[in-house]
């Protein structure tokens, strides 16, 4: 048995365990040297049936007791990882041994007949044969199913694209599996994180340019110099409003006889100077400057 077990190579992992197969050792009697390759998770009945079919015997008539030796030998070659299922193999083996031992004894009456022993029970061979036949039927049916599937490949139906129609009909999805509370907690924690306040946008401060302000600049410039050129005063000013208001302020000052403006040619430099006392007197003004506030509403230009 040890020789046979080593010859099987069942434990070296190189054996194909996909399909059951039985091979007989060369030059030895089949009963003594049987190489069995079982599919994954094949059961004890599958093993016994494989042994029978390998010998081209009919399961309906084969003397099962004669297979006890071959079965035990195959059993000894099972890998260690099948030890959890070994009891089912041992159960069938014990049944085979019982059948074999009974076959060796002289036949006595059938159960129920006169002369039968009270503990005889049903014929174990018939019982096992029945199980084998039943097992074989489903094993073969499974193979036939596989054959049909391989030929037909399958039936195909419309994929769930008509969800809209179903929704109109009032269909609703099956209830989702219960939500793990931990998911809710995690989601809440993500939501509850205190977010740093965003950077405030740059504040826009409205700039107010008044006539008085620009007039004060003109007056200050004229205090420092006898004449100024408007273009020089506005050098560097990019804001049109600043330019326009300064120009308006200049006109206001002209109107109030504070300054006199000259422009020699169109688009030429605008030169301003303070009015002299004589000029102001000629205009009927006293020597004091008009200190009334400038009219910011520009009403006087209308």
């Amino acid at each position, binding site marked *: 048995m040890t020789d046979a077990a080593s010859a099987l190579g069942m434990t070296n992992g190189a054996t194909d365990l996909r399909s059951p197969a039985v091979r007989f050792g060369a030059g030895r009697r089949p009963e003594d040297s049987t190489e069995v390759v079982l599919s994954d998770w094949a059961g004890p009945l599958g093993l016994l049936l494989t042994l029978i079919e390998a010998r081209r015997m009919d399961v309906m008539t084969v003397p099962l007791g004669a297979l006890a030796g071959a079965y035990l030998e195959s059993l000894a070659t099972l890998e260690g990882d099948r030890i959890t299922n070994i009891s089912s193999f041992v159960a069938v083996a014990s049944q085979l041994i019982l059948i074999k031992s009974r076959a060796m004894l002289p036949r006595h009456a059938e159960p129920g007949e006169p002369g039968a022993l009270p503990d005889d029970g049903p014929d174990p061979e018939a019982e096992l044969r029945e199980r084998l036949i039943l097992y074989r*039927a489903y094993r073969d049916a499974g193979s036939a199913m596989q054959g049909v599937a391989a030929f037909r490949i399958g*039936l195909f139906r419309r994929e769930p694209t008509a969800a809209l129609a179903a929704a109109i009909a009032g269909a609703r999805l099956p209830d989702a599996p219960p939500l793990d509370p931990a998911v809710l907690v995690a989601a809440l924690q993500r939501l509850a994180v205190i977010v740093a306040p965003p950077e405030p946008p740059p504040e826009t401060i409205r700039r107010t340019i008044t006539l008085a302000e620009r007039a004060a600049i003109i007056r200050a410039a004229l205090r420092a110099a006898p004449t100024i050129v408007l273009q020089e005063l506005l050098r560097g000013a990019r804001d049109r409003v600043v330019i326009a208001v300064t120009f308006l302020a200049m006109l206001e000052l002209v109107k109030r006889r504070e300054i006199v403006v000259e422009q020699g040619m169109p688009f030429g430099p605008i030169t301003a100077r303070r009015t002299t006392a004589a000029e102001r007197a000629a205009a009927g003004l006293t020597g004091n400057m008009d200190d009334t506030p400038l009219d910011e509403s520009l009403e006087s230009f209308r």
Partner: protein
Amino acid sequence: MIEDERRLADAELPGDDTELQDAEPELDLGDDASALLPLGLTESSLEALLFVAERPLSRREIGLLAGVDRETVDARLGDLEVTLRDRGIQLLLSGDRVELATAPDAGALVARYVGADAVRLSPTALEALAIVAYRQPVTKSAIERIRGVDSDYTIRSLLHRRLVVELGRSSAPGRPILYGTGFDFLERFGLTSLDDLPPLDADIAGHLVDPGPTEAVMDGEGEASGA
């Protein structure tokens, strides 16, 4: 001892008060179902409904939607089944539910289009699946009794692939789970109904006289699906 084992095993088979549950979702028409105007059910309108439905419909759902009784639904389903017999689309029946699917002969061509391949299972899985398909509803212990080996892993694998579904629980002690096949099984194996299964070996017909209450439940299902 063997008889005792048999009695024990048979006790695990489903009894008359077995609870079979319907795992598939049903249309919820709410309380307004009775308020719907009955539309009647013609063969063509039934065909259109099944064409649009994105899942198998139960006869009850069809009856509720159309406002007709079960007999009318069964009759129209029968008409439609006959009409579609030689067409590329056929009725697929599983228990109380029906759907439209491609005909078995068209499978290879359609499979090329959708890029599908035939289902491939290990011999062990095929054994267990065959037992479930032919004997459903069936318990795990009944499967293991026939296979003679622990089948827990195999059944879990089949459940995972939806080739086997849980149908409910037996009323036997321990209330074991009853397994059966669903639409996925029929579709993957190219069967229009369980009647389309390859016939079991004729030699064992006489050995299948011990179906017990399992077959009784199956008979009830068979009447229900006999359109």
